[in-house]
């Protein structure tokens, strides 16, 4: 039975193609000069360069963390190229007509047409290719509502006050090794500002694509939801199938002002490497949001790709009555390793957090949940509920949970539930006895296990996520 399940999960990596795009790529290596050159090609103001150089010096004093339940050869950061951009992007195309058709074709092949007429009506996309943003759609429509959605490299020029005020305000430069590195070398990513009292009229999304060999992708996203505003943001990512490992070290910062709400969803499908663990993306990501009074941040992630995942989208619940949520599905197979979870830092009174984590391990993979719930002394009446479920497929994989609780307020309540289960032979036999293919049966069972998380995803993405797990989410429930 296990063999059939493995077969069912051993889906082809459909995003594994390489685009024939001529690129301008830096020689591998990392020093101050490289950082100056990144800043220069982006035409950045002096203050941005200074910020990067300061981060670089901080980073040089830091060590790569080793506490995660992950094992991989040390990454040689001198062998990575820190900037690569399609040559055609050099002339800064003004409209889609001027964008290299090969780039547009790449996104179309990935199921993300950038021609507005062909797109999902309610979704605006920022398409980031290696180190640059190729195009951001529906900008005019968003501007009418006062919403800013643009590449962060552009925001540095156009909205320096907002950038200066908020960049590094949620994830400080010295937060961790990979975050500090990102501060020094980040190339592109998205910037979002939602004005006071505005409900963003569309879903916003960024699609990250690594194409060039031996490059790292270091993107940076900053979302600011001003008082009483609301935004739902989606993030997707893929990379070609290569034998070498590639590094992706992103930073995402969310700021939810009083009464604002940010919903941030990710479908992560970086190349996971082959069955024997050759190749794949090393995904080291720092994501954090700060909630002011009555604000809410909700992280939903579906992690199916990457050889190594190190990622803990977190909420700092600073304002009273603020709410943090984390819904996660992490699927590992082959030799994939994931160490993922969240941190909920309760500072304000009556703050609430919910953590639902679903880990699915197959093959020889390792899947760990790592979560921290901290109740600060001032967090009167704060509450957390955590549920961690692991589903094992076969008997060569590992599932682990590392829940940490630090409560310094006696009135705070922390609840934790954990389960481990298997796709059982009995379940498989029942499905097959009713005429269902083994592949479809596994999909259905895994899908059922993830239901609580999938229902948090925006519709368009729920479908995408379902397909990723080879799960048909046909609308059979009437």
């Amino acid at each position, binding site marked *: *039975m296990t063999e059939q399940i493995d077969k069912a999960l051993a889906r082809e990596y459909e995003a594994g193609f390489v685009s024939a795009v001529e690129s301008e790529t830096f020689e591998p290596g990392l020093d101050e000069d490289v950082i100056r050159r990144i800043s220069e090609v982006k035409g950045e103001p002096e203050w941005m360069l200074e910020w990067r150089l300061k981060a670089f010096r901080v980073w040089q004093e830091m060590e790569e963390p080793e506490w995660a339940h992950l094992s991989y050869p040390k990454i040689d950061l001198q062998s990575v190229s820190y900037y690569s951009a399609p040559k055609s992007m050099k002339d800064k195309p003004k409209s889609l007509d001027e964008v290299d058709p090969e780039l547009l074709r790449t996104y179309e092949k990935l199921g993300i047409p950038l021609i507005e007429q062909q797109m999902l009506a309610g979704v605006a996309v920022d398409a980031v290719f290696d180190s640059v943003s190729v195009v951001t759609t529906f900008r005019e429509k968003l501007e009418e509502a006062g919403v800013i959605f643009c590449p962060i490299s552009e925001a540095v020029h156009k909205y320096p006050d907002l950038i200066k005020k908020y960049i590094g305000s949620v994830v400080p430069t010295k937060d961790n090794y990979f975050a500090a590195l990102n501060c020094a070398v980040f190339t592109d990513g998205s910037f979002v500002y939602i004005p006071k009292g505005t409900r963003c009229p569309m879903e916003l999304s960024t699609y990250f694509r690594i194409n060039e060999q031996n490059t790292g992708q270091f993107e940076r996203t900053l979302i600011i939801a001003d008082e009483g505003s609301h935004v739902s943001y989606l993030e997707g990512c893929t990379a070609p199938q290569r034998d070498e490992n590639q590094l992706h070290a992103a930073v995402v910062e969310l700021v939810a002002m009083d009464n604002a709400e940010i919903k941030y969803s990710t479908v992560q499908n970086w190349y996971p490497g082959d069955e024997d663990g050759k190749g794949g993306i090393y995904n080291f990501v720092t994501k954090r949001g700060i909630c002011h009074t009555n604000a809410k941040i909700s992280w939903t992630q579906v992690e199916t790709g990457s050889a190594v995942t190190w990622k803990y989208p977190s909420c700092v619940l600073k304002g009273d009555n603020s709410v943090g949520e984390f819904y996660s599905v992490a699927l590992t197979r082959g030799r994939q390793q994931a160490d993922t979870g969240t941190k909920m830092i309760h500072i304000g009174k009556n703050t609430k957090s919910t953590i639902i984590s679903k880990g699915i391990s197959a093959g020889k993979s390792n899947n760990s949940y790592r979560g921290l719930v901290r109740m600060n002394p001032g967090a009167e009446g704060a509450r957390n509920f955590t549920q961690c479920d692991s589903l094992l497929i076969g008997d060569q994989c590992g599932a682990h949970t590392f829940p940490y609780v630090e409560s310094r307020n006696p009135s705070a309540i922390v609840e934790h539930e954990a389960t481990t*289960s298997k796709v*059982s*032979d*009995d*379940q498989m*036999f*029942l*499905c*097959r*006895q*009713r*005429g*269902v*293919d*083994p592949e*479809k049966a596994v999909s*259905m*069972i895994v*899908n*059922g*296990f*993830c*239901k*609580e998380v999938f229902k948090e995803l925006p519709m368009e993405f729920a479908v995408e996520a379902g397909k990723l797990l080879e799960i048909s989410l*046909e*609308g*059979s*429930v*009437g």
Partner: protein
Amino acid sequence: MSNENVLLSIKDLHASVEEKNILKGLNLDIKPGEVHAIMGPNGAGKSTTGYVLSGRDGYEVDSGSATLDGQDLFDMDVEERARAGLFLAFQYPVEIPGVSNLEFLKVSVDSQREARGEEALTSAEFLKLAKEACKQVNLPVSFLKRGVNEGFSGGEKKRNEIMQMILLKPKLCILDETDSGLDIDAMQVVANGVNSQRDSERSFIVVTHYQRLLDYIKPDFVHVLADGKIVKSGDASLAKELEAQGYAWLQTEPTEDEIED
């Protein structure tokens, strides 16, 4: 011999589980529309018969044959046998958390339709059928939204099995102790479900320990399975005799494992 008028034909079947011989020369012919009851002591091999016919992993055929509608069952995968019309109502139905009953039923029915080259039903068409089936087995429609068998009582699980049977419309239904553990009302629901599906084409194997089920589902034949083979066959009156006298008088030697169920 011509199989023309036989739906299921089992010939000298020997089968084992974990190297242990369980079925030791089973013979059984079932014609379309017939209902056969199988009774017999615990551990005789009744459940094993259902599992061997449906192709469960770990149940090894050592010799003998079984055909359904003339097709060699042992040549087919589990799902192919199901699509050929073989249905097994489980003695212990398993839960599938998070997968709604409705989704599970629709995927099952669609898979079988697809194998027959028929188009999938629309969600609306299927929902209508599913609601009717719910009514037939006396389950509230809300059960369609709940996870497969998730938190169902014993009786609800068994009625859910009958609902699946009603929707899948198999040629051969094997009911493995579907009446065990049911109160008299629930048992009647099960019996009515079965009776509503009886016609001149569809055949049943009803495994039971109790005469009372057979008062409602009138079998054409009753067989006693002991130690892996049929030791006595008769009509419905045999069940009454067994109820009165037990199995001991039929057995040449005691079964190996009386405690197993």
